[in-house]
């Protein structure tokens, strides 16, 4: 791997990211499965980077899951998204930052559609007005929240309490950067580093002292695909995709996987359990599986947040081996306790995957 | 040498032992071997032997043995020089035995004397004594010996200089063959020496041995040479008998057995059995098959002709490639002086590799067939030469025939290509499919344009309706006056397809038709002597280039007659010859008839 060659490509794919004043759009999957992630993101933005982020409780799902499952028509999703823009406009913000990759892809797609077909935009403005009596301005800047973290990766590195380095050996930790398909595969110029060698997550890893694994199935989809996962008969296909990736990355002995798409993080985490139960195969070291983090969680760990405070106990694959390597101290007793010290329940022990 | 004194004691000397033992062992071996082979025949074939044994067929066999095994009439026809060589050997030796036997009987006045007595008669016969016609017999025996010695001279010449015999190649030999060949060559010269030495000592003999004896006595110590010469003669004979069953000379006795069996109607089936063994052992390795083989003449392939293929079978050598490396054109079979079923035996040695289950070819649908008097089966290959089909349909229409084109849409293969590749079981499955279709047509006559199909329809389908190749059908139409043709102003040569002419004996019909529609030029390739186009499916060893070479050589041979058109009667021949014949068009007879 020739890093200079990659950097040459990265130079070609730089995009404009706003400095401040972000309108935050939450993700259905992220807030359900990794609730600590979005909290951590907002906390980092506000308290560590001192940025103005508005998290408007009135915004809804973008209906992307329904749209990609052929349930929600294009006009509907556009109108829903238009409402988000209206909320942003009303709040006096111009920079849209969705947390979800699907949303990011949809926003991009809708803005592109309107760009090429102004008549559609007109129609949607009309729909929105009829439905809600709202008007909107299109965002001046659209960036995924991982783009924001990428933008401030060096500032974060400056405040970091931990580095992505094995404290016992001094070896940089090997991270797998998994980019959500809808981040840049549909519109390569909208992603940092383009579609072939996206730099958004690897940029963070490098900035925080880690190393990135470039394994053959790097570009492959995690297998989520709404229609694949939602229909039970297709789930075998979905899990086969993740398996293909795990088998391809395994020889590189990754220490962790980081994803910018909530769906990817969820599936790469949960499918490891499924594969182990189905086939008795585990990946990673010593049967623990490969820890899968969202980029918010990774950022929070680097900045010294408590692992249980950012919700790492919600993961299927245990993160403790990674915490040990990074030298992060944590209280094993507190893992399945809430803030008030009450038990939140302990998951059933898997057959093969070590916890 | 006190034996010369005339006494009444039994004629015996130790030196007859090698000959006698050799003969007894040989006869014993042959009896066991033939019994075993014949026992392995299928039941119905064995029945034929029982039926034929006391019929006229046996006498006919005797005549054929005389003509072929002794006079070598067929070899004579192909190559007079070679025929003469074989004849002097076989017939000469035969006469030597027969006349010698008569001589000994006349002398002994009894038919019962030990078998060796006639053979070594000159040794036991006291020269001073005379018996009725002894001078005449001596003359006759010397004459026959001379005849034989000339034969040997020819054989030696052939071995070292085969071109004199007009043969490009003669059979290659292994060490064992050379040994027995040497023994055979030595037998008669040694007999000549033994008889001459005896004559030189004691007189007797005639123009050859007597004079030679006198000549030798001038400078050789005959006293000490004569007796060893007889020992040598007997030993050579004995050795020859012992070596014979494991050598090419096994053909001498086996060919006779084969001629009987053949005349009694025993047939070579799909399986390799004792009858095949008998045929393989009947091959005299005359090598005629090598020169007729186009793989030899066009591609210089010289290890697969029947003579070599059979030698591998006899010697239990690897033969898989040779089994496949054959066009099955039948040119060798047509010229084989022994009349061995060369193709059938080779085919029986091709492995049956297709797994046949109830699903095999189950996908073939039963097509709807319109019933009619004449069923027309074009064949797979004809669908690649639509001109033939179109012409046949025109002829049917012109003659207002009540016909049905049974493989117009969904025809399947006739099964012969499968059979040719050894897969007889799978072939039968395909044949069943076609049989159902032919039955459904309720036709009285089955006409096909493809000689490959024709052969298998005739031989394997066991149809109870008339099967005709389209050339025969057209010929019939013309004879019956149903089809009027005009002679075209075209000079033609006829390439009779292998499967049609040699394969099924259809020679007159196409030639008669062709003579009526064009000016047919007679060629040396007419009838069963036709060449192979090279496109044969049967050979899976040679590559496309070699096939093309055969095809272009064949076209060249016909082109020498400067025809306007090369006419054939087979879609495969048409395509194959058409591939290389760039100057002269190649057409099917049917196409010519349709134009005429």
């Amino acid at each position, binding site marked *: 791997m020739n890093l200079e060659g990659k950097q040459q490509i990265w130079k070609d794919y730089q995009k404009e990211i706003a400095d401040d004043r972000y309108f935050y759009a939450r993700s259905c999957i992220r807030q359900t499965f990794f609730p600590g992630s979005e909290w951590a993101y907002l906390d980092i933005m506000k308290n560590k980077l001192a940025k103005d982020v508005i998290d408007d409780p009135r915004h809804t799902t973008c209906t992307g899951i329904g749209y990609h499952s052929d349930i929600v028509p294009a006009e509907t999703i556009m109108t829903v998204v238009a409402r988000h823009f209206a909320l942003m406009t009303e709040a006096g913000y111009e920079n849209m930052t969705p947390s979800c990759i699907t949303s990011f892809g949809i926003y991009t797609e809708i803005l592109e559609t309107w760009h090429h077909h102004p008549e559609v935009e007109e129609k949607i403005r009309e729909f929105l007005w009829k439905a809600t009596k709202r008007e909107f301005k299109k965002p001046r800047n659209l960036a995924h929240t991982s783009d924001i973290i990428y933008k401030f990766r060096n500032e974060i590195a400056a405040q970091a309490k931990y580095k992505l380095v094995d404290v016992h050996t001094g070896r940089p930790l090997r991270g797998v950067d998994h980019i959500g398909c809808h981040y840049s595969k549909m519109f390569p110029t909208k992603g940092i580093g383009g579609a072939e060698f996206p730099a958004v997550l690897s940029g963070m890893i490098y900035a925080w002292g880690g190393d990135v694994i470039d394994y053959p199935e790097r570009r492959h989809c995690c297998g989520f695909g709404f229609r694949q996962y939602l229909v039970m008969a*297709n*789930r075998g296909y979905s899990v086969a995709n993740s398996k293909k990736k795990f088998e391809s990355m395994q020889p590189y002995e990754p220490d962790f996987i980081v994803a910018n798409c909530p769906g990817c993080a969820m599936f790469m985490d949960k499918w490891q359990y499924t594969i182990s139960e189905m086939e008795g195969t585990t990946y990673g070291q010593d049967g623990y599986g490969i820890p899968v983090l969202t980029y918010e969680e990774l950022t929070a760990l680097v900045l010294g947040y408590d692992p249980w405070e950012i919700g790492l106990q919600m993961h299927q694959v245990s993160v403790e081996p990674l915490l040990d390597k990074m030298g992060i101290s944590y209280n094993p007793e507190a893992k399945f306790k809430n803030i008030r010290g009450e038990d939140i329940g302990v998951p059933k022990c898997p057959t093969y995957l070590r916890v | 040498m006190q034996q010369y004194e005339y006494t009444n004691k039994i004629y015996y000397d130790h030196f007859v032992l090698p000959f006698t033992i050799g003969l007894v062992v040989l006869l014993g071996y042959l009896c066991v071997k033939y019994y075993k082979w014949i026992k392995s025949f299928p039941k119905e074939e064995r029945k034929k032997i029982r039926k034929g044994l006391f019929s006229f067929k046996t006498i006919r066999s005797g005549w054929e043995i005389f003509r072929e095994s002794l006079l070598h009439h067929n070899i004579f026809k192909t190559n007079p020089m070679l025929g003469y060589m074989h004849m002097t050997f076989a017939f000469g030796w035969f006469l030597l035995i027969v006349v010698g036997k008569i001589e000994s009987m006349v002398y002994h006045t009894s038919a019962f004397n030990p078998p060796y007595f006639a053979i070594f008669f000159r040794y036991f016969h006291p020269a001073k004594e005379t018996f009725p016609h002894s001078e005449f017999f001596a003359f006759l025996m010397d004459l026959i010996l001379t005849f034989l010695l000339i034969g040997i001279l020819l054989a030696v010449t052939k071995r070292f200089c085969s071109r004199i015999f007009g043969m490009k190649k003669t059979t290659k030999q292994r060490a064992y063959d050379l040994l027995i060949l040497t023994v055979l060559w030595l037998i008669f010269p040694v007999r000549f020496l033994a008889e001459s030495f005896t004559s030189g000592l004691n007189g007797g003999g005639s123009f050859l041995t007597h004079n030679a004896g006198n000549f030798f006595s001038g400078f050789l110590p005959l006293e000490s040479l004569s007796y060893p010469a007889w020992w040598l003669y007997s030993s050579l004979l004995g050795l020859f008998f012992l070596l014979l069953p494991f050598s090419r000379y096994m053909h001498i006795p086996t060919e006779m057995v084969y001629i009987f069996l053949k005349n009694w109607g025993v047939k070579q089936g799909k399986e390799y059995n004792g009858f095949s063994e008998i045929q393989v052992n009947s091959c005299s390795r005359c090598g005629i098959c090598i020169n007729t083989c186009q793989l030899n003449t066009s591609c210089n392939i010289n290890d697969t002709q029947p003579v070599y293929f059979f030698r591998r079978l006899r010697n239990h050598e690897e033969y898989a490639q040779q089994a496949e490396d054959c066009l099955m054109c039948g040119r060798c079979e047509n010229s084989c002086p022994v009349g061995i079923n060369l193709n059938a035996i080779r085919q029986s040695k091709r492995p049956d590799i297709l797994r046949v289950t109830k699903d095999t*070819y189950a996908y073939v649908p039963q097509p709807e067939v319109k019933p009619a008097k004449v069923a027309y089966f074009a064949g797979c*290959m004809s*669908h*690649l030469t639509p001109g033939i089909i179109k012409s046949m349909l025109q002829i049917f229409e012109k003659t207002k025939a009540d016909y049905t084109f049974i493989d117009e849409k969904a025809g*399947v293969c006739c099964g012969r290509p499968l059979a040719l590749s050894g897969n007889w079981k799978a072939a039968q499955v395909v044949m069943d499919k076609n049989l159902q279709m032919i039955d459904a047509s309720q036709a009285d006559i089955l006409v096909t344009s493809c000689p490959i199909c024709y052969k298998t329809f005739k031989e394997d389908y066991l149809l109870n309706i008339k099967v005709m190749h389209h050339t025969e059908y057209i010929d019939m139409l013309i004879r019956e006056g149903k089809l009027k043709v005009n002679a075209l102003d075209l000079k033609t040569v006829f390439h009779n397809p292998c499967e049609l002419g040699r394969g099924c004996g259809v020679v007159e019909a196409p030639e008669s038709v062709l003579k009526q529609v064009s000016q047919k030029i007679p060629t040396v390739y007419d009838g069963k002597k036709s060449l192979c186009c090279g496109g044969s*499916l049967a050979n*899976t060893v040679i590559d496309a280039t070699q096939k093309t070479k055969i095809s272009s050589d064949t076209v060249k041979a016909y082109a020498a007659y400067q025809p306007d058109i090369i006419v054939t009667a087979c879609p495969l021949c048409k395509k194959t010859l058409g591939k290389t014949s760039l100057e002269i068009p190649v057409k099917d007879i049917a196409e010519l008839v349709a134009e005429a």
Partner: protein
Amino acid sequence: MINFWGYSISETRSINYDTNDKSMTEYIARVVPSSKLCIGCGGCTAGCTAGNLTNFNIRKIQMLMKRGENKEAKEQLQKCMLCGKCMLVCPRGVETRKMILEMLNYIKTKLKS
């Protein structure tokens, strides 16, 4: 593999050339060198009786065989009637009939497992 909650992990459809058994294609390349000349025109299959009545596709089968995917060859080849029409139309002079025979031969004698 157990059927886990109503589904199981799908097997890949893709050809894994690295791990496939290429012994058959090596054998065929050696005994039928002309087979290497195929350009995939499909002439052989167009006129094939079995090819028109079933999914037997000699062009595809030999291509798969060349990639070490022998399963289809094993399943399909028995449908061939060996009529040789394919050989007559091949623009590259591939000895298709011989190739089929040799493939059958190989499957029967060497590809038992």
